[in-house]
């Protein structure tokens, strides 16, 4: 095994193209435990954090650009970013401890392709786009097209995510992310729910609802979105949102939760997140 | 004679006797006397029991501890700690 720390995207692509067993990493918070638990070691470890673009954070012309390896602690510490995307910021800030926060990144959280990744439902709810580099140049794809299943992505062997782009939300729009973990910290989400709403006074005019940890990949819930749009988030609407979210789940039983539990709590978190998003949108 | 109190698990070897008078100046002598009277009880008392004399828990494996003529001797299940 060999460690490499390229300083340009091209150099990194070259390393990947030259060796099918090469693997990029940002925080290695999942990679190192995987290697320790006996998964085969990559031939080349490509550390992306010395490429400036990969660790950037900035806004220009109404679009935020976030490096794929930018530590999530940098996002949560950025008042402008957190103001624009409160839910995305809180989802990013929930990835592990303060120690982990200085290593974790959207790129790592997304491309590790865990169904329970905290940032991904919020990335989906905000229609975040991933800029992917490879031997054939760069392409931009919606984040929901990156992950295809647990541990599986649509990226080719010589591709990696360079950065993310997300448009500043329109007026009276806000997001929220809630997750359920057994403790108060340090756990993987048993259920995660991200909701983004645009409000016109008391009435919701646009909605996105995305759930994590309840299916092989993040689940959008169109029925919940439809229930929200045009509503005032009255009790009946929220119950419809909860029912739609529960129905959209395709969960498993595992050491973290049961199928029944995930279904039920997905509904609870979806309605609670919707309520918070609506309050924020009108704030 | 000391009064000996046995547990229900000991009683499996004593036809149900749980309390009896036994002669013996030490715990070891009491155990020997009981083992002679009740086949199979010896190993349980020697290896699988703790002993309290007049309510005071005795060091594990003790056989030399004195047993006064009017003592109350309890054989207990073994006690360990964490």
């Amino acid at each position: 095994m060999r460690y490499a720390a390229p300083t340009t995207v091209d150099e990194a692509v070259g390393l990947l193209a030259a060796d099918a067993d090469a693997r990029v990493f940002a925080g290695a918070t999942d990679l190192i435990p995987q290697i320790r638990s006996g998964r085969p070691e990559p031939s080349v470890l490509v550390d992306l954090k010395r490429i400036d673009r990969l660790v950037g954070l900035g806004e220009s012309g109404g679009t935020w650009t976030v490096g794929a390896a930018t530590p999530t602690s940098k996002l949560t510490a950025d008042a402008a970013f957190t103001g624009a995307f409160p839910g995305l910021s809180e989802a990013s800030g929930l990835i592990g401890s303060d120690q982990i926060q200085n290593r974790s990144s959207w790129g790592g959280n997304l491309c590790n392709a865990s169904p329970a990744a905290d940032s991904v439902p919020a990335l989906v709810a905000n229609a975040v786009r991933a800029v992917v580099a490879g031997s054939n140049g760069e392409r931009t794809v919606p984040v929901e097209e990156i992950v295809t299943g647990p541990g599986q992505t649509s990226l080719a062997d010589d591709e990696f995510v360079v950065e993310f782009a997300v448009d500043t939300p329109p007026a009276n729009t806000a997001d929220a992310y809630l997750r359920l973990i057994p403790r108060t910290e340090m756990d993987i989400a048993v259920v995660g729910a991200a909701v983004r709403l645009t409000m016109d006074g008391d009435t919701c005019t646009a909605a996105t609802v995305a759930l994590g940890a309840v299916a092989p990949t993040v689940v959008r819930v169109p029925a919940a979105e439809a229930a929200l749009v045009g509503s005032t988030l009255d009790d009946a609407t929220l119950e419809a949102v909860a029912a739609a979210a529960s129905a959209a789940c395709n969960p498993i039983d595992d050491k973290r939760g049961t199928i029944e539990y995930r279904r039920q709590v997905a509904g609870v978190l979806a309605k609670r997140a919707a309520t918070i998003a609506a309050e924020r949108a009108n704030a | 004679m000391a009064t000996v109190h046995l547990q229900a698990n000991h009683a499996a070897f004593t036809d149900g006797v749980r309390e009896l008078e036994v002669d013996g100046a030490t715990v070891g002598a009491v155990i020997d006397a009981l083992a002679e009277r009740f086949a199979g009880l010896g190993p349980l008392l020697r290896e699988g029991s703790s002993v309290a004399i007049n309510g005071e828990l005795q060091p594990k494996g003790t056989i030399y501890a004195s047993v006064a003529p009017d003592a109350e001797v309890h054989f207990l299940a073994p006690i360990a700690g964490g």
Partner: protein
Amino acid sequence: MTATENPPTKYKYVGTRPVRHDGLEKVTGKARFAADLDLTGQLRGAIVRSPHAHARIVSIDTSAAEAMPGVKSVVTGADFPAIDPADPAHDEAVNNIARDEALYVGHAVAAVAATTMDEARAAAAAVEVEYEVLPAVLSIDEAIADGAPIANSTNRTLFTGDTEPSNIASVGPFQRGDVEAGFAAADVIVERTFTTKAVHQGYIEPHACVADVGQDGKATIWASSQGHFAVRSKTAKILGWGTDKIKVTPAEIGGGFGGKTTIYLEPIAVRLSQKAGRPVKIVMTREEVLSATGPAPASKIHVKMGATNDGELTTIQGTLHYSNGSAKGYAALTGAMSIASYKFPNLDLMAIGTVDNTPKSAAYRAPSAPQAAFAIETLIDEVADQLEMDPIDLRLKNAVVEGDPTAMGAPHPKIGFIETLEAIKNSEHYNSPVPEGAGRGFGTGFWFNIGEQSSATVNLNEDGTATVITGSPDIGGSRASMALMAAEELGLDVHRITPIVADTESVGFTDITEGSRATFATGMAVVNACRDLIEQMKDRAAVMRGVAADQVAWIDGAAIIEGPPSEGADPVSIAEITAAAKMTGGPLTATASLNAAGAGPSFAAHLADVRVDEETGQVEILRYTAAQDAGTAIHPSYVEGQMQGGSAQGIGWALNEEYVFSADGVMQNAGFLDYRMPVASDLPMIETIIVEVPNPSHPYGVRGVGETGIVPPIGTLANAIADQTGVRMADLPMSPPKVLKALNER
């Protein structure tokens, strides 16, 4: 906040809170734990572990591993002497390294030593083991099922004379009175089955040791252990060596809680070192710690309890199953015996220990008591509910006092249960309103505590300072307690005393630090040695002042001359006596050894306020108070620390900790990510009330305090959850999915 029967004004040092002697090393990173050692030429060891829950080991081929780069030695079970299954040491020996039968996933079957960890790991993976997979038993229910496969072919039910293999480790009935009559006299009868999963002690330091076998064939071991003399005797037994061939030096120990009373690595490290001719260090990974070292037993406990309308608990009847994991043990017996807090004139308990193909269980802080207390404290709470009685008043009415029988029938010595209950009843917490929408629960716990063998040597140095040498590994601040008791005896400032834990060749035999015994028993040895020294110093002072020895008294750390002709002469200080020692008879040193009788049981009572999120099943602890009878608190900060630490462990056990096994016996959560111990944000401050009802069998009245604190939390939290929601949780852990399921079924 300290409630005391007799305010400890009579002591100058005992009851104070000096900075611990080993603290500086620990806050600067200099303290040496076993894994921190690095000897010249040291090799790294790695263990080959069974991937099967139950299998016959057909053959082991080590040739490929031996040929790998950097590999210096390989051992298997064949490198250790055979041991008779009837030998009490058998199960621990084969748990260290399997012989013919792999008994759980993670069971050690071979080991390698190589120059680097990478090489050792690679070679371990290259050891070829041929297994014949056998049917496995993974739970109490499977173990006791009709026609169940035998989990461990060497197990015979203890003390029954049975010669056939069995999944029953032990059977223990406990009876008094007449339960049928007791139930007939009862106005209220409650009954429930409680189940708990295996949980781990969760010490943060993984097991580690370094072994170095010299040219003379003698082994030196540096160990992370609660008892290095036990490491010596167990290692000697497993190797078939004499204890004179082994020296064990205690490293600083990074937590034990009972889990480091057994050994796993030392005999293997010694054999690897002997074969390689170089020192060998073995450090477990966290995954190995969780999947191959002792969890506390899973249990299944059915209890039926009766009470009269005026709150007298008349009767208890129950069956207590505890899993010992892959080996025999006493877990169920201990569990039944821990039911000792209430009078119950009629009692009929059957304790059944089972054997299965999960890791061999080990002691964990008040072993087996938390599971039983969960059942008892829940049912008593239900009785209180039905009788509409205050839960503390109900317990006060039935609480044992001196002379009342324990589950085994032996009378309790002087105990402070009533005082402990009253401490909570009188607390500000209990007298404050329950927060809006929350629930409040109360529960209690009992633990025996034990005495056993200890040795101590106290040396007075030439400048009047002292060194206190014991053989009790310090797992929670006990060195400070030893120094405090020596300071009190000698009248010497506690910081002029250096307490150390010496190796097996430098201090007399001392049993394991377990059963909350170190401050009690080893402390008593220290006190005895100090008293011997005082007599010696009085003699020396008499020589120095030219008076008869019986004219010298020892007061406030100095020899006082009484009677003519030197009445009123200047007192002789310790420093003067030690400075003159070479002219009065040589160095001053004293050694004391004992096998301590009269350990004092300790009772605890806990109070918790919780808020259950009734839509998600999450339980938040809003406030927590723990009261415990310490006898006498030698160093109150570390008494509080034991109470708080025990509470936190019990809270973890109650809410989230559990072993999760796959259908083929592989632990699914062998890491701190999914083995969920409490983190700082899970807990509130844990308020403590130290109750002091002195133990008459100890010179300062010490009861052990280490263990009891883990006993009450499970019942306390279950009762708090019931108070808010009306739901009685009977299956641990009370994790969000289980709580929500119970709420749904309400």
